[in-house]
């Protein structure tokens, strides 16, 4: 509607001078520059992600590109079994400081996998169970008490959990089950599991609480018991959220360092047993990076492992976020 624009300003300017209302030039400049500064700073989160990617990639890249590093190790040598002595069967070996350094990744991947698996298997039942209890059955007073418990559990620094697993849990488990090694995949995995219970619980409980009241009430109006309501109506509705919680817990467990560094035994063994010691990717970096020569093949391999870890957690977390989004759409679709 440009019709109005054509009207000439035929009303004479009789009011006070605009000047008296104008903004001081200093304030105008400050507004402009602070706006630019704030917008620029807001990019730091994006910049941080990009820089993490770039600079870990930069230190990891020589494993793929540098011929100097290739004299010692190649990506291929990191994933195939290595010959130790002629005639002996080929093996996966992580021996970065021996005379001929060996950098087999499979034992480390397996170590991370075993610790994570134990952690999830341990944590998920407790976390999901507690989430169901607190969202469906707990009286309000008890629910109010569960929250700080979970927050306190989440507030325990991982080095403290690692300490507990190393000094207390390991001995208890060994004495109870008569294991050969105090520090092993199960010990580290359980401590790791305790640490990720809050992550799974928080997401799962949020998902359960987000199931609209109408659904519960409808089910109860049809004569369903609370047990049937929970099992047949609420759990299926919240399933993507619970899955997302497990995924985010998984992401946290893969990357967690101090607990596995202190409680897993740190032996890179290619073994399927959950009672053998393990060495995870994260613990390998933590244990060795301080000792390596900057720019050596070993140094670059550790960054390469870091890059793998970064990508792995990124994938798992993205999957979790995807399911959080799916849950939101499903629930808003139902209630709207």
């Amino acid at each position, binding site marked *: 509607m440009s019709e109005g624009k054509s009207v000439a300003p035929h009303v004479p300017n009789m009011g006070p001078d605009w000047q008296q209302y104008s903004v001081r030039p200093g304030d105008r400049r400050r507004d402009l520059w602070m706006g630019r500064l704030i917008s620029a700073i807001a990019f730091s989160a994006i910049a941080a992600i990009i820089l993490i990617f770039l600079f870990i990639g930069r230190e990891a890249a020589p494993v793929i590109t540098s011929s100097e590093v290739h004299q010692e190790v190649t990506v291929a040598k990191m994933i195939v079994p290595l010959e130790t002595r002629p005639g002996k069967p080929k093996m996966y070996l992580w021996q970065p400081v021996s005379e001929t350094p060996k950098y087999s990744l499979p034992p480390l991947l397996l170590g991370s996998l075993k610790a994570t698996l134990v952690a999830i298997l341990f944590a998920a039942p407790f976390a999901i169970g507690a989430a169901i209890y607190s969202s469906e059955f707990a009286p309000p007073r008890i629910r109010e008490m569960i929250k700080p418990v979970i927050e306190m559990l989440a507030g325990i*620094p991982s080095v403290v959990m690692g300490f507990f697993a190393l000094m207390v849990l390991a001995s208890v488990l060994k004495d109870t089950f008569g294991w050969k090694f105090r520090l092993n995949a199960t010990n580290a995995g359980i401590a790791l599991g305790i640490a990720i219970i809050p992550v799974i619980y928080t997401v799962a409980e949020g998902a359960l609480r987000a199931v609209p009241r109408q659904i519960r009430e409808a089910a109860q109006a049809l004569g369903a018991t609370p047990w049937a309501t929970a*099992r047949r109506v609420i759990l299926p509705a919240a399933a993507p959220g619970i899955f997302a919680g497990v995924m985010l817990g998984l992401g946290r467990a893969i990357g*967690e360092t101090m607990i596995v560094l202190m409680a897993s035994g740190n032996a890179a063994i290619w073994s399927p047993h959950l009672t053998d010691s393990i060495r995870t990717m994260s613990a390998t970096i933590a244990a060795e990076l301080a000792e390596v020569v900057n720019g050596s093949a070993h140094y670059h391999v550790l960054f390469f492992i870091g890059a793998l870890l970064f990508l792995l*957690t990124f994938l798992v977390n993205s999957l979790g976020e995807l399911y959080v989004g799916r849950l939101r759409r499903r629930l808003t679709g139902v209630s709207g």
Partner: protein
Amino acid sequence: MMADPAAVHVTTDQGAVSILSHRRFRFLRHVSPLPILTGFLTLCVVAMLVIVLWNIIAGGIGGLTWEFLTASPTEGMTKGGIFPAIFGTVFLVFLMTVFAIPVGVATAVFLRYYARPESKLARLVRVAVNNLAGVPSIVFGLFGLGFFIQFVGRGIDKAFYGGDLAFGQPAIIWASLTLAVLTLPVVIVTTEEAMRAIPRDYIEASYALGATRWQTIRHVVIPNSMTGILTGGILAVSRGAGEVAPIMFTGAAYYLPYLPAKLNDQFMELGYHVYVLSTQSPDVEKTLPLLYSTVLVLLLLTFALNALAVVIRMRLRLRQAG
């Protein structure tokens, strides 16, 4: 909420009958397997927390003396105190907040008052913040080494120190910057939450009085989200004080005979001290009491900070409600 339908009945005239049905309802709840099972699992989670805390408190409380808190380690760290580690931790998290809070607050302000809510840019920033929160702490350690020390630090050395080693090595500034990046999401999320709670009325009143956007942010938004910013800072400190992996190669030292005084000094830190004592002590039996007390101090520090954040938040909510 499950009891709601029954509760409604209780208030009707046929009280006796309804209470009966109410009881029957509760009875049903108790025979169902799910409440019993999930209740038991919840109890287990509580038990885990209690066991861990009880163990550490029982083991550490005896050694928690004034001397322990104020003295330096002696006799190969098997005796003495942990003062340098406490000092280093405080210095570290202080520097960290100096970096993290302004950046976090500015990002929150941007998301709330500069970017259009559904714009691509705002979404991108949110995705980045989310992802940043999911990066493993050891990867932050690698990042600190690869970026802050090798790139920024070495760059400073080349430019200002003629290539001599001054900043291109582990130091408290690099460790605190690394932690600042790690805790940035906490600050952003908490601050934004606080800003969301500021009534739109205040913002409109400020604009209607002819305040510029920056004036509105400075005089209305920031003062009214101060408690939120404070909470974010405290939560970040609590998180930062407990992290060890990011500082292992960016500045934490095994043992230092002096306190850090310059930005490029190394430092001792509580969490790292716990790690060192528990894995590299020549005589664990001898160190153990001391170690327990150190763990207890670290735990008390993070819990006290978290509790403080909870209290501040609760007061904020109450004030908004009232």
